[in-house]
């Protein structure tokens, strides 16, 4: 059967335009390779008025920015979410996993928190420390030069702290802490919990002439007109397209990687969402950067006589070791912040301070750490603001120190909502989970999506390790919030509520489904992200992660994708590819 072909034979066909795919497109095209980028969603550019949600007011949305359709609200840049019409997935009974997808140029880098933490030396060798999971086949020292390059070219603010497992980098100057963040800092000092400047990929100074600097609107999640924060579409794919050598295919839903009789990749087949036709794009190499789970899905759906269990899956571990960061949260009201003075406190699109993991797991009853993120301040009201006064109002005091009653109505209620604005502070713990063979995604034998592509089914359970960590988080939250003078809101989450742990997938750090390793029997990729079973096939998303660290994954995706791209160029020069 004849299938329509699009474009020429490319040097590299890249699936996905997020952090991994975007970086590969940028580096490979710079090296002179011809590149095709396939994106399952539409074109998006926050600098163009038609797409702009930045600097809009809440009343410009009829639902005031509520999350009816976009999970983080109308103004958030993400097109997609945990549920997408026509693109279902399933969960095996008694297990949970919520799968977030952004169908758009730049993928999930359009609305991420811009938290850009390097993994540390210990993060690459966790098995050596606690005997759990597996070590990475690379060391921090091997990846560090790529972190350096990512820092300098994309930009991240931060400070030199000299911490053993939180390596410093090439930092831009951070913004000064906001008022509640000074309370957090002082609270932390009292109880020995470090609070240091955050490390966010937001330009407080320029790193190139193509991108502007931050103008402090607190809305990075809406996409930046000045490109002052990192998103892969604006900072990697579009600049590469301007230089030439890159063809972008949007609305291109990739179904499978095609292979020849020798088992080598020859290209990909995609469905154009607009005309619902199938097309083939041919490449000398194929790079998957579709997200850990989507890339696993494509591999598992790429069955052939040479690869009967799916491409690059002779080990049987494609889809296995799926893991997400852990997450739990708590909130307090700071009485000293009631009826605050008003000024523009927007700042950058995220917290100005954070707490890196500060304890030694060898002395604790759970194996992996977590970091703390802080929220609060006088940010722009959106849907939900002013709500919850049936419980929250009892934390409000008048000038004589008298507590208000819960609930109510009228002028007193109106006054108390004004009073509490900017007086709540919250902490989120985000931690490392232990990758498990038993936590996986695989192809659902019964379900297909609207493009006829078999869908994923998930099987994921938190283990005692994550529960122990979340229990510790809850204690930390209370200690920290109390230490800064806060009055805790709500009940502490106990064992019956899994210590407030969010469902797997909710932190949107899915990693591990095509992990790298030296042994082809227990890993999918080698240490350059190259498939053991198929040498012209690479994975450049977080599927390659052996373990997730108590950090956010983006900076490591970028560094690893750059390293893989360099390797491809080198191998092509040598005639190996």
């Amino acid at each position: 059967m004849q299938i329509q072909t699009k474009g020429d034979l490319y040097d590299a066909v890249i699936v996905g335009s997020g952090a991994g795919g975007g970086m590969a497109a940028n580096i490979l095209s710079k090296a002179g390779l011809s590149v095709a980028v396939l994106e399952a969603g539409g074109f998006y550019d926050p600098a163009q008025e038609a797409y702009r949600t930045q600097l809009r007011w809440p009343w410009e949305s009829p639902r005031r920015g509520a999350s009816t359709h976009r999970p983080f609200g109308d103004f958030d840049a993400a097109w997609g979410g945990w549920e997408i019409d026509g693109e279902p997935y399933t969960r095996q009974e008694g297990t949970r996993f919520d799968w977030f997808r952004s169908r758009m140029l730049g993928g999930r880098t359009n609305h991420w928190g811009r938290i850009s933490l390097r993994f540390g030396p210990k993060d690459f060798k966790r098995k050596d420390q606690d005997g759990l999971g597996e070590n990475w086949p690379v060391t921090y020292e091997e990846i560090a030069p790529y972190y350096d390059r990512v820092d300098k070219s994309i930009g991240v603010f931060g400070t030199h702290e000299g911490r053993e497992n939180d390596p410093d980098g090439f930092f831009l100057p951070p913004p000064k802490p906001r008022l509640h963040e000074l309370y957090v800092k002082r609270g932390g000092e009292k109880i020995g919990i470090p609070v240091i400047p955050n490390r966010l990929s937001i330009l407080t100074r320029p790193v190139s002439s193509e991108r502007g600097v931050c103008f402090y609107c607190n809305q990075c999640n809406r996409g930046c007109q000045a490109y002052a924060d990192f998103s892969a579409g604006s900072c990697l794919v579009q600049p590469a397209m301007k230089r030439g050598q890159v063809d972008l295919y949007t609305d291109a839903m990739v179904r499978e990687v095609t292979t020849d009789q020798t088992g080598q990749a020859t290209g990909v087949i995609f469905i154009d969402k607009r005309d619902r036709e199938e097309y083939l794009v041919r490449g000398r190499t194929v790079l998957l950067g579709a997200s850990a789970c989507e890339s696993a899905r494509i591999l598992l759906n790429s069955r052939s006589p040479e690869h009967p269990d799916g491409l690059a899956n002779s080990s049987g571990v494609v889809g296995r070791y799926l893991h997400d960061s852990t997450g739990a949260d708590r909130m307090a009201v700071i009485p000293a912040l009631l009826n605050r003075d008003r000024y523009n406190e927007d700042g950058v699109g995220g917290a100005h301070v954070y707490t890196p993991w500060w304890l030694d797991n060898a002395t604790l009853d759970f194996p992996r750490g977590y970091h703390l993120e802080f929220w609060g301040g006088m940010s722009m009201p959106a849907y939900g603001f002013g709500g919850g006064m049936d419980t929250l109002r009892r934390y409000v005091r008048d000038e004589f120190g008298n507590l208000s009653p819960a609930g109510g109505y009228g002028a007193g209620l109106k006054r108390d909502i004004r009073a509490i604005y900017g007086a709540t502070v919250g902490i989120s713990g985000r931690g490392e989970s232990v990758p498990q063979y038993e936590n996986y995604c695989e192809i659902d034998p019964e379900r297909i999506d609207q493009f006829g592509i078999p869908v994923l089914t998930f099987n994921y359970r938190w283990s005692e390790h994550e529960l122990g960590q979340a229990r510790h988080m809850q204690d930390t939250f209370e200690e920290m919030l109390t230490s800064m003078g806060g009055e805790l809101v709500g009940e502490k989450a106990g064992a019956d509520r899994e210590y407030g742990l969010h469902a797997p997938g909710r932190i949107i750090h899915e990693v591990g489904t095509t992990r790298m390793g030296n042994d082809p029997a227990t890993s999918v990729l080698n240490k350059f992200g190259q498939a053991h079973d198929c040498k012209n096939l690479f994975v450049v998303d977080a599927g390659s992660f052996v373990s997730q660290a108590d950090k956010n994954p983006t900076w490591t995706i970028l560094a690893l994708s750059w390293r893989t791209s360099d390797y491809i160029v080198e191998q092509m020069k040598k005639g190996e590819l």
Partner: protein
Amino acid sequence: MDRREYVKLMLAGSVGAGLFLQSGCTAEDRRESEEILEATGADRGYTAIELERDQKLQEKTFFNRHERATVDQLADWIIPEDDRSPGAVEAGVPDFIDFMMLDMPDMQVPMRGGLMWLDNRSRDLFGAPFAGCTRDQQQEILDRIAWPDRVEPDWEYGMRFFNRMRDLVATGFFTSETGLKDLDYKGNQPNVWDGVPDEVLEKHGLAYDEKTLNESVQPGERGVRAEWTDSGELLRPRMVDNK
């Protein structure tokens, strides 16, 4: 200043506090946007599918006339006019609530049922639906459902209904233009963050320590391209005046 000029200035890092994106689009912007609109249907930050969905919702109304009259009265009971700002009705809150009922259909039954429950109770007590009661009678009913810590068991349906109504009215008011003005929200405009104002720090007994002051971004350097030493130390430009 047109938007294009403005974006250029943002790129150059020279936009200071006070400059604001209010001048609207240039002809070129409009043409560019129209092309995108035609090709993809996206506009105002919404995708074509989202625009179509919202347009359909906005063509409908949820409340009947009697329900709407009751919602209007409840809205002004919850957020009345005071010396600082108008009440919820003037701020357009009932229209917002009507839209939300269509937008989040799960809220329809509790809302509609709650309004009817309220009328039933009003008739039992005062022989008229809530909207037909006197202010004193209305207040008597509200006082039995508005204070969660002292609600009698038989009135808990009303408390739940009123909690929802309070949430909707409060959020509708404080996310309106009137509400943001009332809150004295100062943000959502380009500016240069240089920390908490000194007088505020003083009130809270706080100060930036030396380390923070030295390492934080200085407003005057924000247009200067970053360079580092080989060991990663950021080169700081010599500042004549940081303020």
